[in-house]
Structure formats: C-alpha cells, structure tokens
C-alpha cells in the first residue's frame, strides 16, 4: 500500500507512514517464528517423505482420483454451504486421527497386553462394578461407611484376591482351559464396548430403542466382519478388529448421526465420501498401473520394525509402543492427582496465606525445566526408592510429575470458568458442596479439563531430557510388556539416532522420519484437544 498524506487546509499534515511501518513490523514479528518453523518442517518432511521420488504417473492418478474431485466438491460446498464443508472435513479428520490412535491401540493389544489378560481384567472390573450398582439400589438401607468399605473390599478382592487363599477374578479367567482366540476376544471386548456406545447414541438421537439396538448390532457385526476378513487376507485379525472398532465404526457412527440429525449440513458428507473413496480408488489404480510412490522413509517397515545398524532398516516400533505405554502411565497418574488438586484449590481451599503460597508454587513448577524433573525422578525413584533405571513406571511417574502443574493449572482454569450462577443455583436447591461439585461443576468443566490434560500429554510425549536422566536405554529391540520393563520413547530414539549413530544415513533418513512420526502423533493429539475445546465453547 502506498503511503498517502491528506492535506486539509488549516489542519496541517499527519503522516501515516510511521503507523504503517509499525503495523508491518508487528506482522513480521508474528510471522517470524511460524515461518522459521515452517521452513524447518518442510525441510525435515522433504527428507523423510522424499516426495520428489514418485513417478509423475503416481501424482497424476492421485490428482485425478483424489485432489481434483475433492477440490471441486470442496469449492462448491465452500460457496454454497460452509457448515456442510466443515462437517465433511471433520469426518475425514476424525477418520485420520482415530486411525492413528486405533493403530496405537492395536500395538497395545497385539504385542503388549495379550487380549486374554485384558479380558480377564475387564471381567474382574465388571463383576465388582455390577455389585456396586446393585448396592446403590439399596443405598438408603446401608450406612454410608459400610457401603464405602464394601465397595473397596469388592474391588480389591476381585482384582487382587487373597494371595495363597483365594484367586482374583483375572487369575481365574486366565486359568480357564478353553478360551476364545485373540481376535474374538478383542472383537467382543472392544467392538462390544464401542457398539454399546454407538447403540446408546443412536437410541438417543432417534429416541427409539430399536434404532439403537440395530445400530449397535451393526457396529459389532462390522467389527466381526473386518476381523474375519483378516483371516482370509493374511492381515492380523486382532489388529483389524481394534482398528475397525476404534476408527471405522466411530467415524461411520458420527457420519450417520450427522446424516440423520443435521439435515442442512448432511450434504457435506459427500465431501468426506469423495476424499475417502478417491484415496482408495487412487491407491488401487496406482497398484494396478504400476506407478511407484515416493521412496518415503516413513513407511510400514519404519513403523513396524525395531532399531537396526543400517539406517534403511531402522524402525521406530519399540519407541512407538514405549511412548504409548508412557502416555497411559502418565495419564493414569497425573489426571486424578491434577484434577483432584484443582478441585480442592478451586472449590474447597480457603483463601489464606498457605493456599496462596501453594498457588504461586504451582505456577512456578509449571516453568521448571524438564531436566530438573528428570533429576528429581532419578533421585527419588532410582536412588532413594531403589527402583531399576529407565522402566515404564519410573519414566511415566517422572513425566507425570513434569506435567502435573500444567494439568492443575488448566483444570483450575476450566473449573473457574463454570459460571458461579450455576453453583449458587445448586446450593439454592439445597445441594451440598460435594453434590454441587459432582453434579454441576465437574460435568460442566470436564471438556476443558480434558483439553488441558491432552495438551499436557502432548508436552510429555515430546520430552527427552527426563528420560535420559532416569537412564532409559538408547536402543532396545522389543516392546516393553509390563510396567517394570525398560522403555524407550519416540523423541529419545530420535535423539539416539542423531547423536550415537554418527553416519550421514541416520541423519538424513531415520532422524527426519522419526521427527515426522512424532509430529504427526502430536498434531493428532492437539487436534483432538482443539475439536473438544471448540465443541465445548460453541455449546456453552
């Protein structure tokens, strides 16, 4: 924009130049970080994915089947019905993100926790849960303390038993002589759980029990069908069952629900269909026509094999599994502690010197460098408590300590944003503080709490320094199978490749590929957090 000056007689001149320069300086400051990072990412992604090595025919096929139709439909929707386009994009995004997460879950079921063990613990949890539900029915006739004691005892007995005298339920289930094959267990365990949710969702949407049952059975049948198809195609049926139950069924249910209820926007599903079918048709066409895709280092082999001395054969599998286990441990430890602390500080704690002291300290702890937490983990868990170095439990506990302040702060933020009118209304109706927290505050704040926790987990998944400090191995070749096995993580593996394997090959092949996978997981986690936040904001 050219500088201009307006001359009005009697008012002198005011130059806009300074203001315009200032504006563009500010814009430059805004863009500086983003552009620098974008250049780095393009550089890394180019190294990892090697997009220039593909046949021109490969690009042509995908342009014809995927890019061109998707752009056409997308442009049409963008002009006529933007909300519909958003719905369609959300369905595609859901499929991509759930595919990634269910792939992780498949690793868990295939190689870490045998399905039989999961089944045994599921049974071990369902039995006491049923007993507790039963007890709640007679809540008025049983004194509170007896109820609490009985609940505790039932859970303990069924999960742990009395060693030597009485087997726990998981142990008994694992001793059953004839058990279903693994994929059958997974189909019913995961597929069953997902189809119950899907069934309830449709029953509520249509306000019709039959619709729910039909949807639920269809979901279970789909999971079973995909698993069975694995038996004939040679793909691991357990993994197929997990991916179907975790990705295909939820995406289809979401799309189906939208088609039923959002009449104005359901045309957007066309966009999702064009993208998904375009990708599938493109993949088949490329295979049939024999066009080679890019020589990407992020390929199936990279994701499923372990470290190797040659960069071409090196893979991230143990690190991916390790990261998944670490995140589960971190979430299990930091979520209850962090949310508990947040609820106490927001709802119960009196405003005095002591709580203000704690306030300040939590804010400061959130900024403590991660290497200090690593040292804390090493000192407390390894040296003082005498645990083995570098295990899943130690790593998870250290990372949980690291993100605990962040979880507390974001949970407090979410709890604080619950309007005090709602609390007052609850008190006005005679509810106690506990009832208010349980029935009003926590349900209202939950999406915010979840968003904060996911973002905090995103920080934990990228941490390297604490894991180095607690002595996690630089190289391992198989997945950790229990809490006390040694663990590696994706950023740690990338660090090991970049520092301990000096050859240029590792630097240009394995390291960028690892970075791309790590960033993809991080983006997926953050996108879940963002979608949750947007949904939460538009509802309230």
């Amino acid at each position, binding site marked *: 924009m050219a500088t201009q000056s307006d001359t009005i007689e009697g008012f002198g001149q005011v130059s806009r130049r300074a203001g315009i320069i200032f504006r563009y300086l500010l814009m430059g400051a805004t863009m500086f970080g983003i552009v620098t990072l974008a250049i780095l990412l393009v550089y890394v992604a180019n190294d990892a994915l090697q997009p220039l090595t593909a046949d021109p025919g490969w690009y042509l096929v995908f342009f014809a089947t995927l890019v061109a139709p998707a752009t056409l439909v997308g442009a049409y929707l963008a002009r006529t019905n933007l909300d519909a386009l958003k719905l369609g994009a959300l369905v595609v995004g859901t499929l991509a993100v759930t595919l990634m997460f269910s792939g992780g879950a498949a690793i868990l079921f*295939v*190689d*870490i926790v*045998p399905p*039989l*063990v999961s089944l045994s613990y599921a049974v071990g949890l369902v039995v006491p849960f049923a007993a507790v539900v039963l007890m709640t029915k007679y809540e008025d006739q049983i004194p509170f303390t007896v109820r609490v004691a009985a609940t505790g005892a039932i859970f303990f007995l069924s999960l742990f038993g009395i060693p030597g005298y009485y087997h726990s339920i*998981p*142990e008994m289930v*694992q*001793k059953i*002589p*004839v*058990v*279903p*094959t*693994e994929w*059958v267990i997974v*189909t*019913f365990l995961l597929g*069953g759980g997902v*189809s*119950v949710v899907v*069934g*309830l969702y449709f*029953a*509520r949407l249509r*306000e*019709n*029990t039959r619709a*729910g*049952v039909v949807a*639920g*059975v269809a979901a*279970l049948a789909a999971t079973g069908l995909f698993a069975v198809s694995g038996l004939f195609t040679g793909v691991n049926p357990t993994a197929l069952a997990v991916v179907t139950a975790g990705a295909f069924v939820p995406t289809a249910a979401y799309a189906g629900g939208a088609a039923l209820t959002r009449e104005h926007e359901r045309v957007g599903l066309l966009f999702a269909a064009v993208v998904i079918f375009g990708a599938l048709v493109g993949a088949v066409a490329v295979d049939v026509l024999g066009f080679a895709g890019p020589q990407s280092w992020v390929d199936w082999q990279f994701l499923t094999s*372990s*470290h*190797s*001395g*040659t960069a071409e054969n090196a893979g991230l599998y143990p690190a991916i599994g390790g990261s998944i286990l670490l995140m589960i441990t971190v979430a299990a430890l930091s979520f209850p502690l962090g949310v508990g602390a947040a609820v106490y500080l927001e709802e119960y704690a009196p405003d005095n010197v002591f709580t203000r002291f704690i306030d300040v300290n939590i804010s400061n702890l959130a900024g403590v460098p991660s290497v200090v937490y690593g040292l804390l983990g090493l000192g407390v868990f390894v040296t003082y408590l005498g645990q083995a*170095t*570098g295990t899943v439990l130690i790593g998870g506990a250290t990372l949980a300590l690291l993100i605990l302040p962040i979880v507390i702060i974001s949970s407090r933020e979410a709890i604080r944003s619950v309007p005090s009118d709602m609390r007052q209304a609850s008190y006005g109706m005679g509810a106690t503080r506990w009832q208010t927290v349980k029935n009003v505050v926590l349900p209202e704040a939950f999406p915010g709490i979840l968003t904060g926790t996911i973002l905090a987990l995103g920080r934990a998944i990228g941490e390297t320094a604490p894991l180095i400090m607690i*002595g*996690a*191995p*630089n*190289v*391992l*070749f*198989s997945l*950790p*199978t229990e809490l006390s*096995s*040694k663990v590696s993580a994706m950023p740690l593996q990338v660090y090991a490749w*970049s*520092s*301990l*394997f*000096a*050859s*240029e090959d590792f630097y240009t092949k394995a390291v960028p590929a690892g970075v791309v996978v790590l960033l993809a997981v991080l983006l997926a986690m953050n996108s879940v957090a963002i979608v949750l936040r947007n949904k939460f904001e538009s509802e309230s």
Partner: protein
Amino acid sequence: MTRNSDVLSRRKFLIASGAAGLAGLAGCTESNEGGSDGGSGDSDDSGSDGSGELSGAIDIAGSSTVFPLATAMAERFQKENTGVNINIQSTGSGGGFANYFCTGQTDFNNASRPIKSEEESQCSSEDINPVELKVATDALTVIVNNDNDFIGEGLTIEQLETIFSAETAPTTWADVNSEWPDEEIEIFGPTDASGTYDYFIEAILGEEGPDHRQDYSATEQDRTIIQGVEGSEFAIGYMGYAYYSENTDAVQAVAIENDAGEFVAPSLDTALSGEYNPLSRPLFTYPAQESLAEDHVAAFARYWMENSTSKEIVADEVGYVPLSEDEQSEMLDKLDSAIEAAN
C-alpha cells in the same frame, strides 16, 4: 427424560450381544496354554515366544566406543531370539561401571579400557564379579579439520602430550610448534566418564605423567566431536575409529608417530598389524558372572564371542578390528568357565 429408554436399550442390547457372543465363542476358541503358569506376563505373551525358548531382558550400559558393536550384535541376536529384550545404553565406560554395573542395574558393561581396581572393589562390595572379555581392537583416532595442512606428516607423541597436558596447556598452535599458525587450538574429546579418555591418558600422557587438560569441549556423543572439528579449521579431537570411519569425508585422521619412528595413519590394517601404536587398544565387555547364570544372558555372551571374529559385523559394519581365532577361543574358554562357575 430419556433415561428410561436408555436403560431399556442397554439391557436389550446386552442380551443381543451376549447371545451373539455365545454363538461366536462356541466356534472360535483355542486351548489356553499361555495362562496356566500365572499372570506374570514377562515371558509368556504369545507374541514373543515364536522361534526360541530363550526369554528375558538383558541390560547393557557402558562405553560409547563399544556401543555400536554391542548394538550390531544385539540386533542379530534379537532376530534369532525374539523373546529376549536387549536394552543398550551409552554411558561411557566409567559411568557405566560406577552407576549401572556395580550397582546391579545392568548385566553387561562395555569398556574401551580394562576395568580399574577401584571399580573392581566397588563391584565386589556389591557381590558382582565382572568377567573380562575382549571383543575387538580399536584404533583410537586423532582428528583435525580437513583444511588443516600445517601439521604435515602427522603428530608425534610428544606433540600430542603437549597439546593435551594440563601442565603445558597451550592456547595456540604456535605454542606447540613455532612454525604452526598463531591460532587458538579448539579441543574436542570424550568426557572423563569415557574409557577413550582413560586410554588416551594412559597411552599419551602416562599414568605418572601430567593430567589431561580440562579446558576442552567434553562430550559423550562422538558425533558432536566430529561436528566440532569439522566446523573449525584449528580444532583437534580424538575418539574411537568406528565413528571416524563413518565420517571420513568430514574430517581427516592424523597419522601418529609410532615406536619405530614412522608416521602411521589409523586404519583396521595398521591396528591389526600393530604398526599403529601406541593408540591401538583392546575393547572389552564385562558380563557379570551372576547374570551369566541366566540362560539368555549366557547365550548372548556366547553369541557375541562366537561372532567376534566376523569381519562382516565387526570390521565392515562397525569399524573395529575383529579378534583373531586364538583370541576368540581363549575368550570362549574364559566365558565357558565363568558360566560354569555361575551355575
């Protein structure tokens, strides 16, 4: 308001899926063998007991110089024994002994120098008996920048001693030799946790001699040493031969004057023939005798020794001099008697 229908649908749904489940269970069962020996879960997950009966974890720490060799051996062993989990950490020889091996955290400790007597006493106070196994020969390599042409034929032991001694501690190259440029020496090297550092002191500075200077860039990451020397014309550094052999374009190796007065460049051949002295050195791994009582640890130790003469693994892939047949049989005897003593 919809709670009632929720409950109803849930119940109906459970009945429906339960019935379907029973039908499925009847058809798709297998006999449960894995679960019969308890829920320990360590070794009995069905994914990992495919090819061999060996299972368990092997933890290895120690020298960054031996690390690539240990990784190469572990990778091959793991392929044949999928039930064994091998975890390898690069901590430096001394760091590995003091913090991991002698505290009972690891089964093996790699070392690029023999174990020290104080380390032995620390281990024995914890009832851990290290078994010394030689795994390869390394040519400790001194590197300088590619643009460095003033050192000419090579460096003498005396010049190396002058550069790295804490007593002389020259700040410029001209302080070492007045014909060399008056530019600051930038020194890169391993930390004092490293066996390479210890061996360099022993070979160049002497046990009784001056201390190693401490005003240098110390790192356990050999790549950092290479990058440091690559980036500065007046830099010098030293490390194991394997890392140099991966980066021969980035830096140049310095020929060192040997006891016969010849300048010899480091290479696998000169290290093997003994011409490259005094900087060619043996590399070791120390399994704990107590750990050798476990079958999978003993099997891995034996696998390593059996492949220690392999030119393909030790020389071509990693970059060290393999053991001779005689050395190998000596090490195998030593290992067998240690395994026998452990059981």
